[in-house]
């Protein structure tokens, strides 16, 4: 899981503009349904929660289930009223949290 999450969003936005944010994080998203060669069930290991905050205020979050594809791709929108920082976090079943930050400036 050493890969950095990939996030795509505009570097600057007009005040009040709704921007689109695309995120992709590398993760196996093991569903807990598959069996290995010995017939044993491969234990579940997924990202179960994704959250995005802007200047500390929640923007979008989602609870994920095993029915989410490997390397979860999540696209959503956010309204930008001020310059600031988007914080992203992906929470794993085992408790590790992958985080990332992106800054957005206001268009002059």
């Amino acid at each position, binding site marked *: 899981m050493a890969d950095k999450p990939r996030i795509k969003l505009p570097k600057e936005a007009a005040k009040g503009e709704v921007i689109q944010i695309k995120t992709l994080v590398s993760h196996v998203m093991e569903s807990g349904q598959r069996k290995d060669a010995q017939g044993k069930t491969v234990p579940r290991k997924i990202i179960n929660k994704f959250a995005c905050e802007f200047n500390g205020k929640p923007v979008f979050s989602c*609870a994920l289930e095993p029915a989410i594809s490997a390397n979860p*791709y999540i*696209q959503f929108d956010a309204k930008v009223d001020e310059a600031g920082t988007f914080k992203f976090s992906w929470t794993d079943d085992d408790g590790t949290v992958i985080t990332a930050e992106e800054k957005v400036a206001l268009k002059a």
Partner: protein
Amino acid sequence: MKAINRRQAFALGGGFVMLTLMPMAADAEVTNDAAKWIEKFTGGKAPAKGKISLDLPEIAENGNTVPLSISIESPMTADSYVKDVMILADGNPNAGVATLSFTPLSGKAEASIRIRLATTQNVVAIAKMSDGSLFTEQKTVKVTIGGCGG
């Protein structure tokens, strides 16, 4: 014209059976605990149709990654916005797919994710608005290769 012999009659009959069975096969059945998920999310209230547009391929060649886009009509202001959207797949081993939570800061109640579908089935979305009203939409996706391993 030649009279139909026994063999041809069988073939014809078989064709009819196929025709009558086909629509049933396409009508995916609920095979998991989807009803429980809906009950928990809605609190027993029946959601109304509409407001949601759910975009999924009609036929998914690979059930491992099926693109899903959803958008819900809403002004997305502090007074009126979409709170939560639950997405369910009624033919997967587990019904739950994702629960999206929006805020007025989202600007638009729109999101795209990629989901796994084990077999041909219905994908159901239920949206909860900030005033507590509920809306639902569903789409059938035909899956040619399942996405749950095995």
